[in-house]
């Protein structure tokens, strides 16, 4: 422990309250100082001596004295006073012992996994009567993890620049903001889920219609946006409210449509998408402030990757309509097997997914596989988040090169601000 009162015993117990005069000061006072008041027979008119400090002033100094936070003259004056004033001497002793109880706040990081383990433990002992739906737990976990990262941030961290990256118009794009801006962005887009559930929109009644970008810019420009840590509380509270609300809603709520402007997702998928965004941006923040940040747990990562894999056929079709992907090879009746790409994701949360290439309505079929891609789970997530470009994705691949290119680009196109 470091501190000014290093000579004070730090157990804080059982100091005999003996003779007041023997209380040693927290800091060695200079020996050659005269005790106040300094006798001066004839004060010069322009040099009036300071009157001796009153009892009230000396008493008020006891805290500062115990912390060695007053001047040498004051220290001396207090210590002289302690020899003649028993109540002050008693208090001085008590306060000095209290200093020994001050500890530097340990910034012990709670292990992120501890939360899941504690909750599992609890629910094992007494099952929840109102559980959190399985599709909402990744969001619950990821928001809690990010919140734990933010806990000890001071103003400097909140103002740290962060670059948000995504893939759009066939290239990598980015936008500069701050840590507070990122949390504002999460608050804003989570707000789409909130409004779908009938909760208040964090942007208020003036919220612009349209997608995540317009909403985020509106929020950043508005005076609703605190540029500091004050944004944490509303974001966190909205997250808690979302989890709580869906816990109470019936089963059908997972199918409720969440409107993202240019597309919509069923609520269950929207929660996974928000969990994914939360993690990706937590990663951005952690990088900006130079902190380590772990990926989500395997089972949660698996759900997020599964969502991206399920969104790929529609993303592919949209790129095809925009002339950005190769044409479908023949019409496939809805539900009929069509050309398929096998996506093999390695590592924690990984697995195999068959992606229908010709139409979102076609049924993927291993008999019709024309290409295979193998990717590490985190690499795939980086790709889907627009953090790496499709050309740079380190993918093992074989088979139809156009199909592979189209799927990698479609994965990157899932990202947005």
């Amino acid at each position: 422990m470091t501190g000014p009162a290093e000579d004070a015993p730090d157990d804080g117990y059982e100091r005999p309250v003996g003779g007041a005069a023997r209380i040693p000061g927290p800091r060695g006072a200079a020996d050659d100082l005269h005790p106040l008041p300094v006798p001066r027979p004839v004060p010069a008119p322009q040099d009036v001596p300071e009157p001796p400090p009153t009892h009230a002033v000396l008493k008020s100094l006891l805290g500062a004295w115990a912390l060695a936070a007053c001047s040498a003259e004051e220290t001396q004056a207090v210590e002289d006073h302690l020899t003649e004033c028993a109540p002050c001497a008693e208090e001085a002793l008590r306060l000095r012992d209290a200093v020994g109880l001050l500890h530097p706040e340990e910034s012990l990081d709670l292990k992120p996994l501890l939360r899941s383990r504690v909750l599992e433990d609890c629910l094992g002992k007494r099952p929840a009567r109102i559980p959190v739906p399985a599709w909402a737990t990744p969001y619950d976990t990821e928001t809690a993890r990010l919140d734990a990262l933010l806990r000890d941030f001071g103003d400097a961290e909140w103002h740290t620049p962060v670059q948000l990256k995504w893939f759009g118009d066939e290239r990598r794009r980015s936008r500069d903001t701050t840590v507070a801006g990122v949390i504002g962005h999460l608050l804003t887009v989570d707000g789409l889920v909130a409004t779908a559930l009938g909760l208040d929109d964090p942007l208020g009644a003036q919220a612009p219609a349209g997608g995540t970008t317009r909403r985020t810019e509106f929020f950043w420009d508005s005076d609703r946006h605190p540029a500091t840590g004050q944004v944490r509380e509303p974001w966190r509270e909205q997250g808690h409210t979302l989890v709580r609300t869906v816990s109470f809603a019936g089963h059908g709520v997972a199918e409720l449509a969440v409107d993202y402007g240019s597309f919509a997702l069923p609520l269950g998928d929207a929660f996974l998408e928000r969990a994914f965004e939360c993690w990706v941006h937590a990663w951005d923040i952690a990088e900006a402030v130079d902190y380590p940040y772990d990926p989500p747990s395997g089972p949660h990562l698996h759900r997020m990757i599964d969502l991206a894999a399920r969104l790929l056929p529609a993303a592919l079709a949209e790129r095809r309509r925009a002339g950005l992907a190769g044409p479908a090879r023949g019409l496939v009746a809805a539900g009929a097997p069509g050309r398929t790409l096998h996506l093999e994701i390695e590592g924690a949360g990984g697995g195999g997914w068959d992606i229908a290439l010709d139409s979102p309505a076609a049924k993927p079929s291993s008999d019709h596989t024309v290409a295979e891609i193998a990717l590490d789970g985190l690499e795939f997530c980086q790709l889907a988040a627009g953090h790496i470009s499709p050309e740079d994705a380190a993918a093992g691949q074989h088979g139809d090169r156009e199909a592979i290119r189209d799927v990698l680009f479609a994965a990157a196109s899932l990202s947005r601000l």
Partner: protein
Amino acid sequence: MQQRLARGEAAALGELYDRFASLVHSLAHRVLGDETAADRITREVFGYIWENPDAYDPKQGSLRSWVARITQGQAVARLRQAELGRGSREELEQKVRSANAAARADYIVTSMPAPLRSALELAYFKRRDYRQAAADLKISEDEARRRLRLGLQLLSTANALPREDTAPPGYGPPGYGTPR
């Protein structure tokens, strides 16, 4: 919160953890000085609250202070267990007293009004004298002296409190953690 826990709302359990996990873990760590042991206490404390939400009586104080008392009781019980037979009875009691005072002091510091805490932090950890602290905080020197004194007075109650009977029967030592 208590009602939500009582009716078995898992979302409330998550919120409870988010609010108090760092308090519970740091208090347990202060008493036991070991991270694995603190993790374990954290699991036990939340398990206890989740299984016994009705044990909290709002008339006895805030939920936060109740959680802190349970934690301290459980951690000190674990300390006793771990230290049993390692030294004289007197040494053990001394360790327990110190651990109790340290945990109470931590709780007092985290719960005291922010102006008092920031004054103490400046004077103690940043070694500012009270005049500098007053300038940093844009307050008068009188006020800086007042805050330092008041902050230490609050803190000193950690030593003055009775030793192990601070937890109401049922969830402090020795009641908590033993079969009832």
